[in-house]
């Protein structure tokens, strides 16, 4: 069978999407695909164009995987514009004179920026914002500019303002309408948005009609407005709307709209059934869709129809949008302006935080019709689903805008209540049904493969939480239990094992395995159970029944490094240390040749200790009054502090003393993961307590307690759980909080992640820890008291027991250190040699 030829005119986001769809539908067996790309580069992400000014390169923005077109025999002419369609001879001709005979054509020429007919609009220093070439021209000009103005305060205009800001210009936005984003937000939302954007240093001039652009020596210098005002500027960018690029269609006699746009039907066919038009050049039902999502839908419709996949139809698109403009969330969906008769509105304005939320409901208040969110669009996904699926609203629809009422969880509909037709990913138009069948048919079990197979969540990413819930729900239904089993040896979660160990007073791993597990255990369950046993009974971790459970850090009471040496971190409570002790650390480091570094937790790290040196080092440290810092354990690490009211002229409480007291209270406490803490002596928060698992900040009246903060891979601020409390109450709450976490968290789950998964969140935690809603606080406090009473420095116990020291040797049969260790010197200290340095050291070419 001879292949038919399809010519795609335009390789923008939508043109590329169409080709991707053809590849996905295996159409390349039947079709010879040819595409013309006017720009000098293949399709790139125009939506995130301003990223170009925050460090992204043209290569980062590209949408076409290298080799994709070649691998699928798609002929692409880059930098060559299609200029003519000859419908009689069925050919397309390009500017470079290439002529291709076609069976079908898809026009995806997109749009061009509209430049209002203002005198001086073509002066040097005026730009449009559409292509990477435009950006490069702007960037070149901006080098000699201080002030930049965007004409147009719509969605694209604000994106563009972001770009100017990134280029370091004093940025202004001039909007003809009385508010920003007039199409998406109402007056109240516009005011909040304006304040928010002005707070970011972008000046907003609304209700301004530009009458002239004035130049000097051929360069822009200022603009004049109808009201007589003027604005000095060095460059101007027009972002006053788009116009469809329909000239190639006009020239060959296809029907176009009165105000432009290639007329299409439900199948995206133009007035010539062999020619399709998709994206911003197309006019459907007298409307141009200036967003990428409807363009993608059209691309899919055409690909489906060309591949005989039934009669998929384009029936208009939802213009719901959620964006982050200049870092400000803006979302608008459905009937945002209450045009439906009888529609009612609920709105809240928080002028302090710059948040505006409005929902529009039907006359009866049962169904959501639309809404506007400015400043915080986190509810967007949820609200959109409520609207699209016509889900009956709670009795007080305003609850959708407010934090949950006391004792109730927020009104969120579970994914299981959505119909299969519910669109989950609006960027790629993926429905719940499609995601579910992909999960079932292809046996997907993780979010990465769901994204890969369905494309859901690969656009703006806003639907990923929903997709994740959907995956979990599907797996649960399929009986592919969302396993919280610890590993193949225990069919229990960590929380269940903790409960078993506590209630049955199980004291060793072997007892637990015999009673409740199978096999021999592994590197997952052994350390987890070792940790639970330590949290419950606080037995010395190197006792024979426990030693084999410990990860190598715990097994040698030090942190293993990449070359197999260890680091030593003695406890320095609160970060307070005497000069004499500092000298001891220096002497020990010098004597044993250790690399020294200050840690993030106000301690001192001594690195490069061989396993056989550890007891000798610790003997010295313990004699000088140090004790284990538990840097090797999933345990309390450090309680960082500032100097507080003792020294600081701003301090209101003695943060150092409290930090020392807290650190000594919880030292050695083993937990599902490491625990960090800090105490700040005033609200300036120099100790960074809000980034800790539990953080304490002094107030005039006492202490504020924050919990579940995290630095690391996903930074998260700690949340306030109690205010202005005295020290006894503070310690009581921390006791309860820590023990509740130890009881219920998963293995290796930090407090921040634990809280995120805790149903009811911080409010629930408050109920448990402060109001004792579970009636367990006495138990939790007693458990902590046992931990505090039974604390012993593990290194002291080890040093005092010769049989334990036997293990601290590299070779069991020879008194000799590991001969493979090689160090080199850098900045006056040693470090492990890289592979290529090792040989040089051994052959004496480097010391």
């Amino acid at each position, binding site marked *: 069978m001879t292949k038919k030829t399809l010519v795609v005119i335009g390789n923008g986001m939508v043109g590329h999407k169409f080709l991707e769809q053809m590849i996905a539908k295996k159409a390349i067996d039947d079709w010879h695909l040819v595409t013309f790309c006017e720009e000098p580069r293949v399709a790139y992400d125009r939506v995130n164009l301003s990223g170009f000014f925050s460090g992204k390169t043209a290569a980062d923005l590209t949408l076409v995987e290298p080799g994709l077109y070649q691998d699928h025999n798609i002929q692409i002419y880059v930098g060559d514009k299609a200029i003519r369609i000859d419908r009689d001879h069925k050919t397309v001709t390009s500017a470079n004179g290439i002529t291709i005979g076609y069976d079908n054509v898809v026009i995806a020429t997109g749009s061009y920026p509209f430049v209002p007919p203002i005198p001086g609009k073509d002066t040097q220093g005026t730009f449009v914002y559409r292509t990477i070439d435009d950006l490069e021209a702007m960037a070149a000009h901006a080098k000699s500019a201080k002030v930049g103005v965007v004409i147009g305060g719509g969605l694209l205009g604000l994106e563009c303002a972001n770009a100017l800001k990134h280029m370091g210009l004093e940025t202004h936005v001039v909007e003809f309408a009385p508010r920003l984003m007039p199409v998406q937000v109402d007056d109240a939302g516009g005011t909040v948005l304006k304040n928010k954007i002005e707070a970011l240093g972008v000046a907003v001039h609304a209700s301004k009609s530009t009458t002239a652009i004035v130049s000097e020596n051929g360069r822009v210098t200022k603009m004049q407005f109808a009201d007589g005002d003027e604005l000095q500027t060095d460059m101007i960018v027009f972002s006053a709307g788009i116009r469809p690029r329909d000239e190639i269609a006009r020239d060959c006699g296809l029907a176009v709209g009165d105000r432009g746009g290639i007329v299409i039907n439900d199948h995206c066919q133009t007035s010539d059934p062999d020619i399709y038009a998709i994206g911003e050049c197309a006019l459907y039902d007298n409307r141009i869709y200036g967003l990428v999502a409807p363009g993608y839908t059209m691309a899919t419709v055409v690909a489906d129809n060309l591949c005989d996949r039934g009669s998929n139809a384009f029936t208009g698109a939802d213009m719901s949008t959620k964006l982050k403009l200049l870092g400000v969330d803006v979302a608008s969906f459905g009937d945002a302006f209450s045009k439906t008769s009888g529609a009612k509105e609920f709105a809240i304005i928080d002028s302090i935080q710059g948040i505006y939320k409005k929902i529009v409901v039907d006359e009866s208040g049962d169904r959501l019709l639309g809404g506007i969110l400015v400043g915080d669009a986190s509810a967007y996904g949820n609200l959109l689903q409520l609207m699209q699926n016509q889900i009956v609203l709670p009795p007080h629809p305003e609850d959708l805008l407010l934090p949950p009422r006391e004792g109730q969880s927020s009104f969120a509909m579970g994914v299981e209540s959505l119909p299969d037709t519910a669109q989950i990913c609006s960027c790629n138009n993926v429905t719940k049904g499609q995601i579910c069948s992909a999960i079932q048919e292809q046996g997907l079990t993780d979010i990465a493969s769901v994204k890969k197979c369905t494309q859901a969540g690969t656009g703006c990413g806003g639907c990923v939480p929903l997709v994740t819930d959907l995956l979990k729900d599907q797996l649960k239904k399929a009986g592919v239990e969302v396993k919280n089993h610890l590993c*193949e*040896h225990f069919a229990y979660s960590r929380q269940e094992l903790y409960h078993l160990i506590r209630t049955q007073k199980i004291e060793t791993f072997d007892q637990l395995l015999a009673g409740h597990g199978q*096999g*021999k*255990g*592994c*590197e997952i*369950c*052994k*350390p987890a159970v070792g940790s639970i046993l330590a949290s419950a009974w606080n037995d010395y971790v190197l006792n*024979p029944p426990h*030693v*084999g*459970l*410990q*990860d*190598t850090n715990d*097994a*040698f009471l030090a942190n*293993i490094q*990449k*070359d*197999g040496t260890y680091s030593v971190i003695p406890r320095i409570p609160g970060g307070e240390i005497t000069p004499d002790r500092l000298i001891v650390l220096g002497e020990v480091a010098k004597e044993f040749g250790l690399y020294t570094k200050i840690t993030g937790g106000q301690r001192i790290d001594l690195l490069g200790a061989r396993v056989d040196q550890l007891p000798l080092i610790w003997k010295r440290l313990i004699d000088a009054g140090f004790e284990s810092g538990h840097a090797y354990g999933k345990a309390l690490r450090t309680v960082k502090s500032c100097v507080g009211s003792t020294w600081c002229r701003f301090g209101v409480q003695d943060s150092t003393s409290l930090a020392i007291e807290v650190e000594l209270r919880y030292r050695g406490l083993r937990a599902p993961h490491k625990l960090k803490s800090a105490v700040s002596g005033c609200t300036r928060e120099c100790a960074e307590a809000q980034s800790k698992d539990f953080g304490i900040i002094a107030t005039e009246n006492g202490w504020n307690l924050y919990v579940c903060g995290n630095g690391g891979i996903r930074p998260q601020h700690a949340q306030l759980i109690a205010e202005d409390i005295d020290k006894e109450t503070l310690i009581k709450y921390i006791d309860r909080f820590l023990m509740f976490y130890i009881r219920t968290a998963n293995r290796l789950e930090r407090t921040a992640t634990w809280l995120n998964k805790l149903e009811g969140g911080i409010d629930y935690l408050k109920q448990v820890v402060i109001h004792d809603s579970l009636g367990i606080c006495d138990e939790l406090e007693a458990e902590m008291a046992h931990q505090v009473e039974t604390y012993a420095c593990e290194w002291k116990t080890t040093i005092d027991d010769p049989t334990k020291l*036997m*293990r601290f040797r*590299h*070779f*069991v*049969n*020879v008194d*000799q250190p*590991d001969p*493979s260790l090689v160090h080199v010197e850098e900045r006056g200290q040693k470090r492990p040699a890289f*592979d290529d340095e090792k040989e040089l050291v051994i052959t004496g070419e480097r010391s």
Partner: protein
Amino acid sequence: MIQALPTQSLINQWVTICPIEQILPNTGVCALVEGQQVAVFRVGDGTEIYALSNYDPFSKAFVLSRGIIGDRNGIPKVASPIYKQNFNLQTGQCLDDETVRIPTFAVRVIEMQVQVSV
């Protein structure tokens, strides 16, 4: 009865490394045998003993004797303490990367003394 062990001809010399009680149940030690670092593991509290190279090819450090031992689907294994790859204690095969296998050594317990041959 004489058992023909195919590897026996290759075993030239047994080296005693330590009494078995020096290897705590379910832990490992490292021995230096004719210049080679050998990791010796004791599974359970009896005389089930395995010997592998102590060299972890992933971290390029001599550390395997300090790994946690256990089993995967009944196969006895050790997990490297550095990046946690698992190795079959019987064969040296890496269970997480089929292209990697580390040397194993003959090992036995005679009169409660652990002996290795390389």
